[in-house]
């Protein structure tokens, strides 16, 4: 197994070398095995779901936040509102209809979220760094994330991990995860009639985290080239590491070929 390489190798599909971004995309795609309907936002989730459709989840149905169901993009769009996801789609609907009937109506099995900050319970901040009224950094905000976190049956988080992003306490809770732990989260979801069961996986550039019975993240798989020390150094709390920690299988040549030749030949997502 080769070392992870930060830059994309010159001779793409034939090489077993791969970037951290490629590993993250491949790991996220594999997690979609067995899922049926996925709500797709902008960025990395977009390439991950398209890869999953071509590999582990051929029947995966995509709901694009922009109001498109059954898209067949001829190219991978930069924005989720690209014309290529409309032409040839099964249905194009208003955002009212998308959020009301598809998402809140309970048709979405998996919602993908990114995050600027996440805590050990999978609560997510995409709003501000610093105080809300005088932010140090103003982030994009919720978009659809808050309602996705509550209404999608489960949530997949995909993000690069660092001491700035994996924090003990997030500055603003944009989207609820497991709140203060599983017991509290389950009670509140039950009492509030939420459809969502909360986050089920966090895929990063270093590994794969699932949530244990306490509702806390646990590192279950380490990507090739990453070390537990590196993981500890990029987490703002004492992270739980699985007793049965496994090594994430490296991307297969076919997975790499699909990313590099079909999905993202310009390398927009995988730089």
């Amino acid at each position, binding site marked *: 197994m080769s070392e992870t390489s930060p830059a994309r190798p010159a001779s793409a599909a034939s090489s077993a070398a791969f970037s951290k971004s490629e590993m993250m995309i491949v790991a996220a795609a594999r997690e979609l095995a067995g899922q049926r309907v996925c709500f797709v936002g902008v960025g990395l989730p977009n390439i991950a779901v398209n890869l999953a459709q071509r590999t582990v989840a051929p029947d995966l149905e995509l709901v694009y936040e922009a109001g498109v169901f059954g898209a067949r993009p001829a190219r991978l769009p930069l924005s989720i509102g690209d014309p290529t996801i409309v032409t040839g789609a099964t249905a194009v609907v208003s955002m009212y209809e998308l959020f009301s009937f598809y998402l809140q109506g309970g048709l979405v099995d998996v919602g993908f979220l990114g995050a600027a900050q996440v805590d050990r319970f999978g609560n997510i901040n995409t709003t501000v760094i610093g105080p809300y009224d005088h932010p140090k950094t103003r982030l994009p905000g*919720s978009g659809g994330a808050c309602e996705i976190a509550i209404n999608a049956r489960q949530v997949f988080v995909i993000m690069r991990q660092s001491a700035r992003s994996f924090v003990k306490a997030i500055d603003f809770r944009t989207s609820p995860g497991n709140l203060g732990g599983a017991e509290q989260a389950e009670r509140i979801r039950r009492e509030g009639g939420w459809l969502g069961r909360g986050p089920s996986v966090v895929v990063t550039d270093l590994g794969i985290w699932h949530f244990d019975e306490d509702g806390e993240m646990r590192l279950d798989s380490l990507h090739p080239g990453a070390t537990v020390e590196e993981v500890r150094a990029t987490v703002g709390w004492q992270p739980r590491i699985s007793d049965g920690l496994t090594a994430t299988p490296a991307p297969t040549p076919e997975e790499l070929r699909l990313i590099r030749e079909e999905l993202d030949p310009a390398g927009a997502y995988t730089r």
Partner: protein
Amino acid sequence: MTTSKVASMRDAIADLVRDGDTVAIEGFTHLISFAAGHEIVRQGRRDLTLARMTPDLIYDQMIAGGVARKLVFSWLGNPGVGGLGAIRRRIETGEPTPLEVEEYSHFGMVGRYTAGAANLPFYPIRSYFESDLPAANPRIREIESPYGDGKVYAVPPLKPDVTIVHAQRADAAGNTQVWGLLGCQKEAAFAADRVIVVVEELVDEAVVRADPNRTIIPGLIVDAVVVEPFGAHPSYVQGAYDRDNRFYLDWDGITRDEDSLQAWLREWVYDLDGRPAYLEKLGAERVASLRPTAPAPSGVVDYGQYR
């Protein structure tokens, strides 16, 4: 109603957009009326409240142009690329003046326009539970179900003074048809006191009447129809031109620095007198490069004559 509502962009903005107004230029990545935004900047409107789900490049440009005192939104960024410098600087530094923000989620904004369009005092949604958003924005409120089965959240109606939308086509009375992404334009238009429709193509009413299910905005609520081909560039119009992704990528550099942003505004907004000059400056080659690679016809359906 055969009275024509066709107007120039200059006249439509002069007549219908006033200092202090709440203005919504809607369109979710698709059909964003950059042409109207630029004309508002050129005419020097002030103290606007700008509402939009995704404030995007157009509001970054308008806010750099000094037209706004407040922003109402749900997602702030250059999708797939990065940030919006003018807006971030106003929020983070309060310079040159603070920018008031009123923030929701996407579904919250859609609900607000829907309540505005339907004259409802609130719109209920299943969002905001256990989020810090209701604390940041006290206009997001809990509401108890009258059936004893718990609470949801309510958002208040949003009724813009003016909503501006771009569309593929309309007739002179303002009956407007759109295909491709629909966003929340219908709701934002019905919610507004005044509506400006900007179109790629003015068509005879017979074209509209041939396919009445395609109409998203009736002329009944439209005040002006502006014919401005390519008026949505660098956003796109399904079937007419592609999103100019190169411009969105370029914007990341332009917006990082206030001087470069103001230089861009001078060059592309203040020093031009309208969209035709903008297109000439953009160049025929760039324009041609954005055309679809091939047609993708919808097919025809038959409504049938019944006499």
